[in-house]
Structure formats: structure tokens, C-alpha cells
């Protein structure tokens, strides 16, 4: 399990009057057993411009998962499976069309829960494009200072926090603070983005393909930095990537998405060594082999994913699944109970006794 859980250390000094109560970590409302984030049946359907009234892209369609405190949950899937939309839903950057979001035991946006504004001070996000996620006309230390400034710090104070954060991500503020984004390399910009996300002391960080645009050596540096920061600041990560090796390296648990739905959820090692869902197996099979003796001759999965505008009935993967039977097209498989950290579940009829699939257990 993650060691970050029992690290109460919070290195950034907290200014008085920030609106938090007393106690060890006053922000930890529900205690360590309470999951940090519970998503239930999250849905986002985009209207198709120029399409008929009913044409909707079901970008995220009934996604449920649990994010435990102090863990890193990796989210993998092909392009267009709804990973980024899910990230934006969690931060309320796009309005959800359905479902429920519970942050540390409190429903988000509900009358008795916490507000979206409150959620946003606990959850931050690092974007994929390190250049466009920084204001090109703002020195990077001001970009980092913007968060603390918005949360009520005075400007010099916010700038001091920003410079501290730059040190934490390995950038010398005297050398880099006054620079503009175009004067930094990709890795340096992404470090600034991480500093920006951490500057308001969030409890959870969504990393949306945060290292995907970096070259391999820089990617490794940034991944190590993320790990170190996680332990130092007692963070919980939601790590979105299409790079399976990176996800395996950094994640405690992994969630596999296909066409806006969760197909498999479980501990990282189990998913990678013992995948349950045919899609996960195909996805893992698509990784290039490092061994020339075991060349991959055939594509493990054929064709493009079907359109999310008019997704297949039943199991969404049945159009490409080598084990598909009639029941797969007729009935949508359920993801099992996933409420524990160790649960490993997959939405597939072949695992569900009595589903009618010939390969299902009796």
C-alpha cells in the first residue's frame, strides 16, 4: 500500500485565516477509510453540431469508480474513450449530465454537500499540452502564483509561495521565475504546470496525459518528481494516460475505459499480469515487444473503435471482441463490486455466472 498515507507532513506553511479548522489535517473530513472520491454513474453526452436533435456523443456514459486516499489510480484506454472528458467532469470544467460525485464523503454540488468552488481547491489538474496550459504573456512564476492569489493571498505572498513551489519541482526561481513559457523546454514547462497545480495545496491531482508529450528521458524525470511530490504533499493522483508502461510504473490501481464505460478496474499488478476483460488483454497485447524473438505479427485488436455517437448495444466491445456471442450484443455486462482497494472487477459476460455466455462460469 502507499506509504504516503501516513505522512502527515505538509511542508508549505499555511497562512492564517484560510478558512480551515484546527486538527492534524483538518481537510481530512471522512478519515482514512473514507474514499477521497466516489464517482457514480457519471455521464456526459455532447450534442453533435449539425446533427439531429437526438445525435449525441456519449463521451462518458455511466462511469463509476472509487478513488482511495493516497493512491494513484491510472486510467487507460484508446483515444476518444472519454478519459479526458472524465477528468474535466471530475473538476466540473464541463457540466455532468448525470451521476453523482462524492468528495471525501460529501456530495459535490448537492444542497448538503460541498460546492464546486470548494472542490476546486482540493482537486487540481495538470494538462497534456504544457505550452497552451500556461499563459504565454505571463512570467511562469506569476502563472504559479495565480492560484494562491485567487484564494486570497496578497500578491507578494502568492509570489513567495510560487517561488517555493518552483523549488519543489526542481526549477530555480531566480533563473526561471521571470521567464515566459516559450523560453522553457517541454519538461521545464510541465514542471511549472505541476507547480501551478500544487500551489493551492490540493489533496488530489488529476494528471491528464501529463507526461505523454515529453520525450522518454524527461518523462522519467517528471514521473519520479510526481512520485516524490505525492509522498511529500500527501497527494492522491488520478493518472490518465494511453501509455501502459507509464501507468504500470506509477499506478496502484488501474481503470480501463472503452467507449465511455469502465471495462475493468483492479490493482495495477493484477491488471497487468492477469487481465480479465478481452479488451484489456488486447490492449496489453498491443504493447510493442522488447524481445526480438517474440515479434508481434498480428494486430491484437482490429479496426477502430465504433463511433461514440451511436455506440453498439449491449457490451460496447462486442463488435471487436473475438469471444462475442449473442448475449454480448443483447445485454450490457455489469462491473462487479469494486469498493475495496483489492477488488479486481471487469464488465464481461464471460466472468458472470448465469449470463448466458458459453464461456461463463457455471
Amino acid at each position, binding site marked *: 500500500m502507499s506509504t504516503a498515507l501516513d505522512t502527515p507532513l505538509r511542508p508549505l506553511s499555511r497562512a492564517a485565516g484560510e478558512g480551515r479548522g484546527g486538527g492534524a489535517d483538518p481537510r481530512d473530513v471522512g478519515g482514512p477509510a473514507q474514499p477521497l472520491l466516489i464517482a457514480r454513474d457519471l455521464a456526459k453526452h455532447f450534442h453533435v453540431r449539425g446533427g439531429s436533435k437526438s445525435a449525441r456523443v456519449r463521451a462518458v456514459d455511466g462511469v463509476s469508480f472509487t478513488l482511495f486516499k493516497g493512491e494513484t489510480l491510472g486510467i487507460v484506454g484508446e483515444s476518444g474513450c472519454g478519459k479526458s472528458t472524465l477528468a474535466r467532469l471530475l473538476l466540473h470544467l464541463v457540466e455532468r449530465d448525470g451521476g453523482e460525485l462524492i468528495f471525501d464523503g460529501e456530495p459535490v454540488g448537492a444542497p448538503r454537500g460541498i460546492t464546486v468552488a470548494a472542490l*476546486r481547491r482540493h482537486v487540481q489538474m495538470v494538462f497534456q499540452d504544457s505550452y497552451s496550459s*500556461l499563459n504565454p504573456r505571463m512570467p511562469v512564476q506569476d502563472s504559479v502564483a*495565480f492560484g494562491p492569489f485567487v*484564494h486570497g493571498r496578497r500578491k507578494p505572498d502568492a509570489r513567495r509561495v510560487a517561488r517555493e513551489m518552483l523549488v519543489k519541482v*526542481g526549477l530555480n526561481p*531566480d*533563473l526561471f521565475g521571470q521567464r515566459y513559457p516559450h523560453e522553457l523546454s517541454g*519538461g521545464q514547462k510541465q514542471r511549472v504546470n505541476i507547480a501551478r497545480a500544487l500551489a493551492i495545496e490540493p489533496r488530489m491531482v488529476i494528471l491528464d496525459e501529463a507526461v505523454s508529450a515529453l520525450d522518454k528521458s524527461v518523462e522519467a524525470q517528471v514521473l519520479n518528481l510526481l512520485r*516524490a511530490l505525492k509522498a511529500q504533499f500527501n497527494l492522491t493522483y488520478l493518472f490518465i494516460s494511453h501509455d501502459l508502461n507509464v501507468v504500470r510504473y506509477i499506478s496502484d490501481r488501474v481503470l480501463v475505459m472503452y467507449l465511455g464505460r469502465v471495462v475493468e478496474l483492479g490493482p495495477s499488478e493484477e491488471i497487468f499480469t492477469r487481465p480479465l476483460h478481452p479488451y484489456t488483454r488486447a490492449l496489453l497485447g498491443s504493447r510493442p515487444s522488447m524481445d526480438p524473438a517474440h515479434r508481434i505479427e498480428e494486430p491484437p485488436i482490429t479496426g477502430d473503435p465504433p463511433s461514440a455517437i451511436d455506440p453498439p448495444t449491449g457490451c460496447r466491445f462486442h463488435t471487436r471482441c473475438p469471444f462475442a456471442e449473442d448475449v454480448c450484443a443483447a445485454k450490457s455486462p455489469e462491473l462487479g463490486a469494486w469498493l475495496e482497494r483489492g477488488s479486481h472487477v471487469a464488465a464481461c459476460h464471460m466472468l458472470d455466472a448465469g449470463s448466458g455466455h458459453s464461456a461463463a462460469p457455471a
Partner: protein
Amino acid sequence: MSQTASLPIGARFDDDSPPALRVRGYWSSVGYRLRHDPATLFFGLIVLLIVLAAIFAPLLAPFDPYKEGVVLRLKPFGYRGHPLGTDELGRDLLSRLIYGGRSSLLMGLVPVCIATALGGTLGVIGGFAGRRVNAAIMRTMDVFYAFPSVLLAVAISGAMGGGMANGMAALALVFTPAMCRVAETATAQVRSLDFIEAARATGAGMFTIVRYHVLGNVLGPVFIYASSLVSVSILLASGLSFLGLGVKPPTPDWGLMLSTLRQSIYVAPLSCALPGAAIFVTSICFNLVSDGIRSAMDVRL
């Protein structure tokens, strides 16, 4: 500080890049780039001279710009102490040019400033709010945009009655839709970028985001467009004056002078060209100076 001890793994300083190029702040670096741009400095000096000449016209003008003389009509350069000759009513042309800068500069700058403030604000609001607000603002602007600018200026100032103030108001209204469109386009471009989303994610309100993240990125295109409108405004103002809707004769005004001297183009072509040259030089200088300032303000250059 014991920072080095708490530095995370892999977080060494990236010291391999060249030493910091920028120690100075934003405005001092803008000043630095301006000082090293001789063209902008030169044209800025001309603009300054024109403005100063207009302000101190009574001290500089050798003659009374209103004093007519029947025998002195359309005299050539240097005639009896008139350095640039006289106009069709025998008034000293140099004095009239110096005085004319006053109303011409006012008619050139004031409407553009009003239009920039008004159109810029509406454009940023529309571009940032998006959807319905944007449609409401931009479609209203399109209605004004559909008219030819001269026709619209004439119609508005005709409806409000002549005079300099009404002329300025009419011109401001003419320029507002175009200004609004430029600001809206620039804002909409910025709005879709990730850093705006990141700012929203920190919990910043709309006004804070616009103030700190949008305006700086919109100012450049708005500024350059506004400066190009100054000369258009001077010319349109002269058109209004010609129709009796702007500056009233005998007030000296470059546009008005151009239109009255135009009848004498075969008799005294040089005198006739002078007010036109004044408008030309002023607008060119405004354009070049604003272009220079814009590039000095662009941190990416």
C-alpha cells in the same frame, strides 16, 4: 533554507541552459526594446512634434489662421512672409495647418479611443461568455457593420445634428462594431486554450480570469487595429466636415482644408496637397509607432 535537503528525487536544477536573459521586469524590458528600435523612436518623435505643434499652435503660428485677405488668395510658397503660401481666402496656410492639427487629431483619436473602450469591452464579454451572450452582441454589431462606414457616419451625425462632438460620437459608433469583432475573435481564440481552463480549475471567477489571463493576450491585436483606425477616422471626419456635419468652417481642419482647396487643384496644386500630406504623415506615423510599441510589448519576440 534547507531546501536542498528536501528536494525530491530527480528534481535537480536545470542549470544547463544559458544564464537568465531577463532580470528586468516586464515594463523595463518593453522600454529596453523600444530604446533599441530607432524607427519607432524616429516616428514617435514626429508624432510628438505634431501633437506639440497642435497644443502650442498660438505660439507657433506666424499669422492669425482666420485673417482673410482678398488680394492674398492662393499665393505661392514664401509670398510676403507666408512660408507655405495662402489658401483660397487668403489665409496663411502654415498657420491653418498648425491650428488644423488640433481638430484633426481630436477627430482622429477621440472616436478611436471611445470605440476601443466600448467595442473592446463588448468583444471581450462576447468572446468570453460565448453562446447566447456572444450571439446577442455580435449580431447587433453585424447590423451596424452592414452599413458602409461613411454612410453610417453621415446618417448618425446627420440625425444628431452637426458639430464636432456629435461627429466624434458618430465616428465612435461607426468604429465600435469592427473593434468589437477584433476583440471578440482574439478573446475566443484565447478562451479555448488550456491555461484558461487551468485558471477556472483553480476556482478563479470570470472577471479575475479576464483581467489576468485574457486582456494581456487580446490587447495586441486590438491595439494595432485601433492605431490603423486613427487615419481612417481623420479622413472620415474630414468627409463629415465637407458635408457640413463635423467641424464648421472657418475653423481650420485638415480634412476641411483638403475639401475646400480641392477646387484650386489646377491653380495651386502644392497648396492643395499640403493638408493631405499632413493627414498622410500623421496616420503613417501613428501606424508605425503603434506597430513598434506592439512588438516591444510582445514577450514572444
